[in-house]
């Protein structure tokens, strides 16, 4: 399962990085005479309603998906670390307050959060990143908090404090390296969720604006014209399936390998 996951992930990353080389078609150039062509040698996945090559659009859509995954995961990780360590290491009142805020954030179903936010800021890639960060931050912060709390009374931490180490050094030099392991596994298992949120928001028209290709918007176009031709819808869904399955298999194998105790809460 892990090997399959790794293969799928590498395919997605490779496709996204070398999109221009792998397909000579321009993903946003119109060629309306060639609309709805089925897959063939000329167009590996066929063409959409405006004649654009679907394979090229899928490859370029991969760039968006991976970019969003990278940016929002790093921001979520950074935010989760800061808030989690503050909650775990700081005074009780700060802990209670942060837990309350994080639980309140978690009580929104993700799609509702996305819809409410986009109503206010308008659809854009930035909105997608914001929604993803808000959706994944609470779980990271909770894990960091739990780990920080348990390490707070560890002997090496207590001795560092006794020797006069400032808070920043204790957190950055002693606690952080010990909590980063499980956190990275959590992050790798969250990537499919991030890809799903981005694709979902683009599907609803809340993400990237046309004509920029995103897997979700390709799927949406396919859905709109599902009676004319099934191929755009199939082409839109396929990369999402490949990416989510790949990252999930990879993440599960990594977790089983490094920390079987870390059973994911759904």
């Amino acid at each position, binding site marked *: 399962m892990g090997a399959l996951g790794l293969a799928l992930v590498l395919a997605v990353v490779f496709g996204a990085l070398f999109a221009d080389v792998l397909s000579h078609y321009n993903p946003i150039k119109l060629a309306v005479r060639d609309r709805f062509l089925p897959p063939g040698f000329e167009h590996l996945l066929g063409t959409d309603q405006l004649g654009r090559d679907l394979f090229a659009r899928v490859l370029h859509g991969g760039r968006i998906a991976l970019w969003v995954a990278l940016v929002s995961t790093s921001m979520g990780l950074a935010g989760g670390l800061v808030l989690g360590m503050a909650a775990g290491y700081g005074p009780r009142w700060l802990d209670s307050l942060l837990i309350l805020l994080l639980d309140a954030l978690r*009580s929104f179903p993700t799609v*509702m959060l996305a819809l409410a936010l986009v109503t206010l800021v308008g659809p854009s890639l930035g909105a997608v990143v914001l929604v993803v960060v808000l959706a994944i931050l609470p779980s990271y912060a909770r894990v960091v908090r739990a780990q920080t709390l348990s390490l707070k009374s560890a002997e090496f931490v207590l001795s560092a404090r006794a020797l006069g180490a400032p808070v920043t050094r204790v957190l950055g030099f002693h606690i952080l390296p010990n909590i980063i392991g499980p956190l990275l596994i959590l992050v790798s298992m969250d990537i*499919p969720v991030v890809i799903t949120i981005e694709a979902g928001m683009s599907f609803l028209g809340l993400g990237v604006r046309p004509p920029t290709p995103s897997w979700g918007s390709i799927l949406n176009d396919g859905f709109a014209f599902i009676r004319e031709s099934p191929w755009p819808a199939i082409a839109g869904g396929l990369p999402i399936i490949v990416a989510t*399955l790949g990252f999930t298999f990879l993440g599960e194998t990594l977790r089983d390998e490094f920390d079987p105790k870390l059973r994911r809460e*759904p």
Partner: protein
Amino acid sequence: MLAYALKRTGLAVIITAVALIMLISMIQIIPGDPAAVLLGPLASPTMRAHFRVEMGLDQPVVIQIARFFGRVVTGDLGTDVLTNRPVLTTVAEQLPFTLALIAMGIVWSAALGVPMGCYAAIHRGSLIDRLAGLLSVSVIAVPSFVIAIYSLLIFSVALGWFPTIGAGENGHLGDQLYHLVLPSLAVGLGWVGYLARIVRASMLEVLGENHIRMARAFGLSEATITYKYALKIAIIPTVVVLGIGIGNMISGAVFAEIVFARPGVGKLIYDSVVTRNYPVVMGAVVVTTGFYVLCTLAADLTAAWLDPRVRQNL
């Protein structure tokens, strides 16, 4: 138990209140002018000013929050911009459809996931167990809207076995159930995977216990042991998890309603976002979030009732 129930309920109320405060404050925190976004680029400055006054956006945040809470407590969620009806009425009309979709999704996931998990636990290590494991992970990974569109493509458009749009005729239960099959399958399929895994894990734990071995020693059949004794205990974690699952299914329901053109709160919110019907969006988000908090509360209380050890955790 009562003390735990009261504390947990109080916590739920506080969390809902904080969540609503966050929702209102979003308007102020997010950069940009909400009036401009909501009215669109063609609005004149006078219209924007009037809109701000009408929505109460010119007041300080604290006053806005106080007014909002005052209105929510009396059941007033604002007025629908397009139809001039109370938002609560608009949302309440659409809610039953979404609830039916989620309920059916739960039925699917229980009907498919629990037996799958049981079977995998009993035949542990076999090929079927490994296949079931792979399948479970796969349906958890793939997003529900992709499942929805592919099932629409295969079972409706290509094969014609199920209807493509709508919720069926009013009052005709059979027709409505028929229209419910594919959307609820799309909503519930991801949860089949979760339930299968949880049931398998807790079944494995229970099947190793002493009283199960005793029952086997007494000569009870495997079927009786599994379904009459082990399953009852193994099912407890699934109840807890179900509360969170409903939150997932609410998100899934939005997509399913759009893909299958069904009426419901999801479609309502989506249409309102597109038409910038801000009161309906906020009102519907309030209702669904409240519903979600209620479900997780119910799940936690049920878990605490079934397993007294949970009550220490507050």
